[in-house]
């Protein structure tokens, strides 16, 4: 299937945007861009869809939807299965995964993980990829550690002492644990390896049929990100309208989530994809045997629409 193309700037284009996660302060740039009319100015009306990441990418690949928000490795994985998806705008500049450990263990570099038991949600997804990247960077293999699949219960497992090392998002689990008076040591994947992370995914069809739409999306989003970086407090207040229950949450914690996220968004040119990060990701996935042979990464992303 295909979606309608050719709009003039006057008609409002409704776009359903799969976010890959539930409403969260990390989506502040999107809320900011809507609230300030950046999308409206581009003739776009966003309808958020908070479903699974892979479903969004599948639907984009199938031409059912024009865009989705997803991580870079998803694009490579999907392309290896012949889904014609393309990464058009880099929102996260750095891979946002951390290894969180008890300070007593004194884990300060990836090599310290040797022989340890590590809890992570499952042997798939960003957590798994981030951990592997870190292990490889220190010349370790998965055989050098014990991996335990614990579901998305890293905070609980760590807080109760069941797991002394867990993998999680840099802007989430460490902050929550600190707020619950659990000091942690953190190893950020981004400090050891450049990997492509979350951004705006579109398809070859959309790029061919309506490149202008991609450009407009990118522009609006870039504005939202820039404003959020510049004024997190304002973005936070705006987000309260979009995130059910944010007002009830601990504001210092949530604000910290936002400011930590912003560290991952900082860029000289917002939206620009680092080709080396793509190459690294490609190599990693091959090494992990998640894709059989290296892909042509240049087809997987484009910086053509980055404002």
């Amino acid at each position, binding site marked *: 299937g295909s979606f309608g193309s050719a709009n003039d700037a006057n008609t409002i284009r409704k776009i359903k945007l799969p976010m890959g996660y*539930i*409403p*969260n302060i990390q989506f502040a740039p999107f809320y900011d861009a809507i609230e300030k009319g950046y999308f409206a100015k581009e003739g776009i009306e966003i309808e958020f*869809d*908070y*479903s*699974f990441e*892979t*479903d969004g990418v*599948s*639907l984009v690949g*199938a031409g*059912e939807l024009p865009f989705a928000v997803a991580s870079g490795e998803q694009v490579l994985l999907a392309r290896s299965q012949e889904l014609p998806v393309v990464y058009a705008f880099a929102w996260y500049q750095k891979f946002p995964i951390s290894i969180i450990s008890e300070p007593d263990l004194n884990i300060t570099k990836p090599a310290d993980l040797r022989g340890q038991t590590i809890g992570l949600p499952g042997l798939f997804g960003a957590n798994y990829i981030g951990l592997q990247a870190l292990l490889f960077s220190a010349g370790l293999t998965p055989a050098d550690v014990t991996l335990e699949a614990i579901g998305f219960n890293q*905070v*609980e497992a760590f*807080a*109760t002492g069941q797991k002394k090392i867990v993998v999680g998002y840099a802007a989430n689990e460490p902050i*929550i644990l600190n707020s*619950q008076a659990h000091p942690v040591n953190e190893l950020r994947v981004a400090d050891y390896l450049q990997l492509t992370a979350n951004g705006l995914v579109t398809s070859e069809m959309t790029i061919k049929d309506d490149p202008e739409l991609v450009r407009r999306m990118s522009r609006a989003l870039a504005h939202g990100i820039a404003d959020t970086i510049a004024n997190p407090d304002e973005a936070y207040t705006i987000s309260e309208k979009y995130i*059910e*229950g*944010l007002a*009830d*949450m*601990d504001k210092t914690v*949530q604000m910290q989530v936002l400011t930590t996220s912003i560290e991952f968004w900082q860029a000289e040119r917002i939206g620009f994809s680092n080709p080396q990060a793509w190459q690294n990701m490609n190599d990693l996935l091959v090494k992990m045997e998640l894709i059989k042979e290296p892909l042509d990464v240049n087809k997987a992303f484009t910086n053509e629409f980055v404002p």
Partner: protein
Amino acid sequence: MDINPLKVFHPSSAKRNGMWLRVLSLGLGLVCWQITSIFSGVEVFILPPPLKVWSRFLVAAQDGSLFRDIGVTFSEVVLGLIVGVTFATILGYSVAKSRALEQVLSPYLVASQAIPVVAIAPLLVLWFGYGMFSKVLICALIVFFPVLINTIVGIRAVPQAFYDLMKSLRASRKQILMKVEIPAALPIFLGGLRIGATLSVIGAVVGELIGSKYGLGNLINRARVGYDMPMVYVAVFMLIFLALGLYGIVARIEKKLLRWQETFERLNV
């Protein structure tokens, strides 16, 4: 040998007893919970004590969003229940009446149960959208099977003698259905409905976890992400009350329609 005097049965006193027992049992449950949350060493943000959940409930109740979530989930559950029960009853009746139909359909019916919703989520989304419809569908799907099976078992247990009686009176198919099959299969069918009512709640939550904007399942997700454990428990309790409410309705229907059974009020079981 002395034998105890027969105790004449007093329905009202039994009812009163039942109420007391239930209240006592709930109270005991709360006490256990409070004790566990104090002494188990589990942190408060993982297993919050009842009072904390209660005060979280009061806060959530005031801003009204809780009731919207309840409303959404309730509609999904009830609609799903209605759709699922309707189809299951019709199909169950047909299958109970025809061995051939059973042979043809049973693999599909069993299969429909074993397919994990997450696996076909993209298809569901593609075909039915992210709105209420897909959740109703999931509820209906999960309600379907128990009601189906119990309809089949119920209809097959109808004594042949009643069919004979109705046939001798030249009753129509519809009359046989209304006057024999439905009342005779009712106890077993209502058992299926009890199961279905509670499963429907599970269905709605699962559906909401796949993707939704509102509803108690969605609320759980939201609260977990914010590590707002008391709120998770509030949502869980709302779900429990929803299930208890539905179950209570079925139990009430049962009590009314199955007065003729009253196994308990018989003198010696």
